[in-house]
């Protein structure tokens, strides 16, 4: 056995805190280590070349690479040693960057720790056996979850590449939050005009199966082969028959909140979400319907000319197989009411959110595009926009920037002036963040052309006085208190991931942050991947973003899906459990704990029944390894021997390095 130890300097990322030359010297005194080398950047082309050369010249059979996290570059280096003719799994990465040099400052302590970790790595790789990846066929169909602009874009891009797509949307129509917007910054494009044609395209695309009023119930399987249960919620309307004539909505006697219009105005228990909805079908909400609440009504059934109403409808479940999944579940506005009692906490009707205001601005909105105070229907003349409500505010535990507030406030101020020429808008801001293309110019237009007054500072309190709302705040540039008398106050409430995101994250086995936003695989290099293979992210479900960024990310996710599904087969990880059938007692405790049903019974010659792991189903969690009473079902790559050796070696007090031993082997330190 001939082990090579390569210690990466990572420029100064590692070398500034870990004395890499000392690590190499210590490594050379370890058993079976025949080569040690410190390299400036192991991941660079010359770095990888140096590793390959050393393997070939010194006939190395195993490699320990002390560098960054294996989560970062394990695949890179497996590929490199495979090029040198080695089995790619005869590599052990030792994390001396993220978990050593970057978290310690003292060179001696960090170096000592790095040496311990290398000793651990050597111990582990000594017990490593060559592994060979298997392969599984790929299901050539993609699932897109969420029908907002990101989901629409992802579905269309995947479908255009000839891959069948199922698009699942929980509400009765496509469109998401973008459909609620009136205009878009910084061009003032009409949101519906650019979005609704894309919605229609989805509906008409031969490769897209659109499922509205549907939710993900359960996800099983793994990359290339997911099995997903989809709940098709009962809407009491037969989608194929409904023509979207809206007669039911007109005649329905049961009032209900208007979800599409962000609660501005009212809707009916049976309704079409909005006139451009796709598909253009009605849906009935039982929780507001007189028939379901009081047992008498059925007006909609009587008036429906298409016979599309079916009160007996129940939730249906369909199960489909997919090779890849795109989550595009978007965002919702943070509920500011509890966190901001100083703004009335919802008691003052004329304090509204920016999304509610957006619906007022929209010509197809509940007010027909007329800005009206909710309290008395009067046209407001003085409008105050307050930014960063529930964002950039540590006092309510929400430090993140919402990313879009500054821009849509400028847009809303401009639109306000267009709607009511004799109005005056004020924006209370912390900083104007206008980083996108054409954004800064747009904000300047809001002030110069449209006369919006920007006041730098937070509003501390909003209270009513003589039919007006007094906004008390600080002008931090002028250094004095200000009071603005407003007719209407619009809050730029921060963004969260859509409410159901955390539940979906669990089903998809992906992680999420304190706002519910899904975590990408790597903040720089894997912006649309997740840590679960085959699951990708698009749009604001991953973090606040504006429309162009959502569309761009959706396109990127689609490209990833298409490239994944262009393969007929996928390699599976060989780090799976394997039963030593000679020693298996046939108790099947392993089968009880296996989350994947990967363990089956096999009969040996002579009739003894033993366990067998189905390699393509095993995901390598190692639960069976621990549950097995005689300990005869090792998880390859994480065997008991390997783990015990790691623990033992890392705790062993190192003997003083024998200088004779070290000099017998060549020390090479590339400067």
């Amino acid at each position: 056995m001939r082990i090579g130890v390569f210690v990466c300097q990572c420029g100064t990322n590692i070398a500034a805190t870990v004395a890499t030359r000392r690590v190499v010297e210590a490594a050379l005194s370890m058993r079976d280590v025949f080569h040690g080398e410190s390299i400036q950047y192991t991941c660079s082309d010359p770095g990888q070349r140096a590793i390959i050369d050393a393997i070939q010249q010194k006939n190395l059979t195993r490699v320990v690479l002390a560098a960054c996290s294996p989560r970062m570059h394990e695949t890179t280096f497996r590929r490199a040693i495979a090029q040198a003719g080695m089995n790619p799994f005869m590599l052990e990465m030792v994390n001396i960057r993220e978990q050593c040099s970057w978290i310690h400052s003292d060179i001696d302590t960090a170096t000592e720790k790095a040496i311990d970790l290398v000793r651990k790595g050597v111990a582990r790789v000594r017990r490593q056996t060559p592994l060979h990846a298997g392969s599984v066929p790929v299901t050539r169909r993609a699932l897109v979850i969420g029908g907002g602009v990101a989901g629409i874009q992802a579905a269309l891009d995947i479908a255009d590449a000839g891959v069948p797509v199922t698009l699942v949307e929980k509400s009765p129509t496509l469109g998401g939050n973008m459909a609620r917007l009136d205009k878009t910054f910084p061009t003032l494009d009409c949101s519906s005009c650019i979005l609704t044609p894309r919605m229609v395209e989805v509906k008409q695309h031969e490769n897209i199966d659109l499922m509205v009023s549907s939710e993900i119930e359960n996800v099983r399987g793994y990359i290339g082969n997911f099995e997903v249960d989809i709940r098709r919620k009962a809407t009491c309307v037969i989608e194929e028959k409904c023509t979207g004539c809206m007669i039911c909505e007109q005649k329905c006697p049961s009032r209900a909140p208007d979800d599409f219009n962000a609660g501005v105005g009212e809707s009916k228990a049976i309704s079409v979400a909005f006139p451009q909805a796709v598909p253009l079908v009605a849906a009935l909400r039982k929780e507001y319907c007189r028939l379901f609440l009081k047992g008498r009504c059925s007006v909609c059934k009587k008036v429906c000319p298409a016979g599309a109403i079916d009160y007996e409808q129940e939730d249906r479940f369909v199960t489909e197989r997919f090779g890849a999944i795109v989550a595009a579940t978007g965002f919702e506005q943070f509920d500011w009411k509890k966190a901001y009692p100083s703004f009335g906490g919802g008691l003052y009707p004329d304090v509204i959110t920016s999304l509610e205001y957006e619906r007022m601005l929209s010509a197809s909105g509940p007010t027909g595009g007329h800005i009206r105070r909710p309290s008395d229907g009067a046209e407001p003349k003085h409008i105050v926009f307050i930014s960063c409500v529930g964002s950039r505010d540590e006092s309510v535990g929400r430090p993140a920037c919402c990313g879009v507030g500054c821009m849509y406030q400028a847009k809303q101020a401009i639109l306000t002036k267009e709607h009511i020429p004799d109005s005056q808008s004020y924006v209370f801001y912390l900083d104007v963040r206008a980083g996108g293309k054409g954004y800064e110019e747009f904000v300047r237009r809001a002030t110069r052309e449209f006369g919006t007054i920007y006041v730098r500072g937070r509003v501390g309190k909003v209270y009513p006085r003589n039919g007006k709302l007094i906004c008390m705040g600080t002008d931090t540039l002028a250094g004095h208190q200000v009071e603005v008398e407003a007719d209407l106050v619009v809050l730029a409430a921060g963004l969260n991931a859509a409410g159901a995101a955390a539940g979906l994250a669990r089903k998809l086995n992906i992680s999420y942050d304190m706002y519910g936003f899904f975590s990408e695989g790597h903040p720089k290099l894997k912006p649309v991947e997740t840590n679960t293979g085959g699951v990708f992210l698009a749009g604001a479900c991953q973090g606040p973003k504006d429309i162009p960024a959502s569309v761009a990310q959706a396109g990127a996710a689609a490209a990833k899906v298409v490239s994944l599904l262009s393969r007929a087969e996928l390699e599976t990880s060989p780090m799976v459990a394997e039963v030593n059938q000679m020693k298996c007692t046939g108790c099947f405790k392993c089968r009880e704990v296996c989350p994947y049903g990967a363990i089956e019974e096999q009969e040996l010659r002579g009739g003894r029944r033993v366990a067998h792991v189905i390699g393509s189903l095993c995901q390598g969690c190692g639960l069976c390894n621990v549950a097995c009473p005689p300990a005869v079902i090792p998880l390859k790559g994480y065997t008991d021997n390997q783990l015990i050796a790691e623990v033992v070696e890392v705790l062993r007090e190192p003997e003083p390095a024998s200088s004779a031993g070290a000099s017998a082997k060549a020390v090479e330190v590339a400067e």
Partner: protein
Amino acid sequence: MSGVKIIGLLCNWCSYAGADMAGTARMKQPAALRVVRLPCTGRVNPLLVLKAFQEGADGVLVSGCHPGDCHYNEGNYYARRRLELLAAMLPALGIEPERFRYTWVSASEGARWTEVVEEFTGRVEALGPRDGGAA
């Protein structure tokens, strides 16, 4: 140099990634911890924890995905049951229960990981090195 050595048994998907994130954010930590990477806390055999104590570890810290967030759906539930039992047995083996902790840290909780390491290291340092290796 504090003189204590702590073994960390971390799942690859949540806590190991969280520890990486703490590093990427350059959050300084005490250096007594030596991390062993595992696919899942469900792969942690309680005997491995005892082995660590037997070999002279002054503390053992196990960390995985939050309940409900396990990469393998339910591995951390098995871990919780096994490790809870183990914790109850430690005093009988002459090991102060404060030297053992299992917790959950997600991939996005770099700051929380740093707090866990600081808290646990402080706790083990206060107890000092274990006298005698045998458990």
